[in-house]
């Protein structure tokens, strides 16, 4: 009781209050969309070429008997880029499902140790759900090289990881290269290695400074927040569709607020 009393009498800062209001604002469209989807409502998703390309990859992969390479990025779970890793794990779930069907499971590489057990668990679970648990190989997900600066979180340094992936991209027979998650400058090295081999490449990241590299090297780029939509586009789970709906609603709310503030400042001077 004392604990509850102390919680209610606690203070909240201005920054925290703003963040809390955005979070609470999200809840309304999120639960509304979830409720509507559960009752059969259909949401039309705008086409994203990269996800359409991903869906078409496996016919090619099965035909050629060659796997798809998936990079989960250079971050793991438990830091501020957990959402990026989660986006990559959604793509992994889809690729593993398709790979198990076509007997061409993806080769998964990662640079952060916390992503490894989750990636292996997702793959193992998918194989079990597909009724072929004996086909699961834990070494299809590989920790190539951890980033020595990951624990200090001051800057990314995944060049050792990039070297390992470049070797895989240039030596192994692959149907396609998929890179989704958080990346730094090393994206260019890996993307360019795949582009020079003329692989079909699907990739994206949330880091704005890396997006020119994504655009320059990927056949089908995913720009910024598009990486978070993978669960809705590929897996079509109600929770993913409703969170995408909430994301779109909140974006429009922010756009309207921004336009109103810009107009107000233009017409009335500093507010």
């Amino acid at each position: 009781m004392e604990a509850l009393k102390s919680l209610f009498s606690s203070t909240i800062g201005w920054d925290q209050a703003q963040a809390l209001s955005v979070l609470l604002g999200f809840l309304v469209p999120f639960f509304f969309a979830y409720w509507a989807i559960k009752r059969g409502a259909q949401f039309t998703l705008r086409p994203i070429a990269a996800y359409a390309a991903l869906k078409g990859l496996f016919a090619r992969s099965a035909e050629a008997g060659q796997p798809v390479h998936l990079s989960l990025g250079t971050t793991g779970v438990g830091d501020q880029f957990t959402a990026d890793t989660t986006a990559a794990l959604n793509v992994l779930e889809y690729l593993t499902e398709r790979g198990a069907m076509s007997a061409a499971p993806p080769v998964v590489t990662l640079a952060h140790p916390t992503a490894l057990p989750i990636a292996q668990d997702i793959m193992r679970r998918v194989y079990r759900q597909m009724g072929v648990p004996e086909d699961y190989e834990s070494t299809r997900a590989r920790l190539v090289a951890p980033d020595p600066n990951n624990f200090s979180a001051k800057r990314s340094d995944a060049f050792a990881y990039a070297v390992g992936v470049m070797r895989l991209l240039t030596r192994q027979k692959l149907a396609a290269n998929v890179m989704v998650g958080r990346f730094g400058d090393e994206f260019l090295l890996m993307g360019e290695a795949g582009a020079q081999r003329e692989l079909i490449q699907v990739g994206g990241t949330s880091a704005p400074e890396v997006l020119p590299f994504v655009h320059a090297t990927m056949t089908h780029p995913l720009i910024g927040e598009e990486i978070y939509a993978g669960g809705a586009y590929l897996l079509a789970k109600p929770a993913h569709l409703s969170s995408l709906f909430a994301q779109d609603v909140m974006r429009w709310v922010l756009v309207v607020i921004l336009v109103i503030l810009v107009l107000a400042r233009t017409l009335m001077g500093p507010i």
Partner: protein
Amino acid sequence: MRLIPTAIAIAVGLVTLLDYFYANPILDPIGDAFKQWTIILTAFALILGLINLLRVHFARIVRRHEASAGYSIVVVVTAMLVFLVGMWFMLPSAPMTWIFDNVYTPLQGAFFALVAFFLATAAYRALRARNFETLLMLFAALVVLLGQTPLLGVLADARDWVLNVPSAAGVRGILIGVALGTIATALRFLVGMDRPYSE
């Protein structure tokens, strides 16, 4: 069985979130403890990662016909050597600093130097005027590039405008979208509707 991990995940998520929103003498130490546990879990994950790395490379060494077996031997020997030096001398220590300063950093620097060449080929591919979008990109890139040179100083204002207006607006738009995507992902975890950790 899926109820227990989901309940733990929701509870930990909510407590961490409340700890961020409120300055509270009860929540603060709990939030700090959760952050410490993350570091401990990462350390254990690193051990799993090392085992995974050794399994992948030992398999290549055993299948001698693979062209990469030689490189795998180098990886295994180096990993074990650094691991043993680290365990024996601990961190930070002079031998580990020597390895980083004299082996890792020069290799990293040499590899980083390749970025310039990769950038040139990637830029050539990206800036070929295939459609209206790439034409605009090419034009903006030329303005920024030429605006840096002293000979074409007249373009300096245009360069600043490109960087401060359309480029900054685009980056901010992307950042807002990324922030919303991050919140949407966090929300799915918090309400227990996305469970990559359980069936």
